[in-house]
């Protein structure tokens, strides 16, 4: 699971949970796998990324040191920063671990890189 994917996941469909975002990451195995860098794609993708959630997630898995707490206005011109963001969004891969709902504590396993967000019917709010 890439952090770009994590940036979109919530546990909000669980009964009683209001936001369920961002899910806390507890990682036991993380890999970094090279992905082609494409600057326009990263800039376009960033327009929809929840930055605080990405920053927090990157820190939780040990790859957040180089990321600023806030994304400044000139980030589009800063290739060094964009490459670090590329790394955090697309190259860092959580292979084993779990996602934890910040409100209910419900855990979602990540196994073989695949987060399992399946819920049983009684957990889902109608």
């Amino acid at each position, binding site marked *: *699971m*890439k952090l*770009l*994917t994590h*940036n*979109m*996941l*919530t546990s*909000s*469909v669980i009964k009683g949970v209001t936001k*369920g*975002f961002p899910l806390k990451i507890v990682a036991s195995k993380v890999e970094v*796998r*090279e*992905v*082609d860098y*494409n600057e*326009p*794609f990263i800039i*376009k*993708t960033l*327009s*929809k990324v*929840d930055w605080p959630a990405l920053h927090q997630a990157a820190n939780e898995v040990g790859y957040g040191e180089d990321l600023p707490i806030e994304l400044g206005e000139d980030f589009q011109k800063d290739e060094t920063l964009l490459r670090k963001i590329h790394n955090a969004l*697309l190259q860092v*891969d959580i292979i084993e671990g779990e996602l934890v709902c910040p409100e209910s504590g419900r855990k979602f396993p990540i196994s*073989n*890189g*695949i*987060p*399992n*967000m*399946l*819920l049983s019917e009684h957990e*889902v*709010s109608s």
Partner: protein
Amino acid sequence: MANSVKVMKRKELEAYLQDVEVFENPKVKLEQYPTTPHIAACMLHTICCTYDDLTDKSVVDLGVGCGVLSIGATMLGARYVLGVDIDEDALDTCSRNLQDFEIHTVDLLAADVRHLANPLNCHLHKRFDTAVLNPPFGTKHNQGIDIEFLKAALALSRHCVYSLHKTSTREHILKKASDWGVEAKVIAELRFDLANTLKFHKKTAVDIEVDFIRLQHKTDGRTV
């Protein structure tokens, strides 16, 4: 995956997709019939070359199954693909396929597609340029699931949705699209040869008529 300036030919793509492993034990309840390499290649090549909705795009594949559409989309230049499926066995097969193809830009998620259109899942909404899907037809015991897949695909995409539906449901799908305020067009009519993939098919081969449909958001935030 290397950048290719020139788009791969359809036949070449189809040849590669022959190597995608398919369902070991297809589940009737989930209507798990694989998208054949031929149909996948036709769909993806059209999406790429006629509409330019794959190269450098982010793509979501709902009901990813064994991953033939996600793999093909990546070969045609998609930068990031999220494949969602409710079936963990299918996701395992898909994951092996991705490894075999040495693709690192497709992420998989075990989730119920029916929950994704829910406004509570807003962080997923409008995050993808393009949605591709071969949904359950929703004509057996799960009526309406095709429509739920389409709703989720529209919620997650900013620009376009490409989907397959039984030709017999065409009027219904087009009516729904009109209700949702999106433009819908049947791009091609295909024949699906289900060749005993699911056990309730008693004949040796069952051809069914399928529409390849494109739905486009009327106001889209397309920037590239």
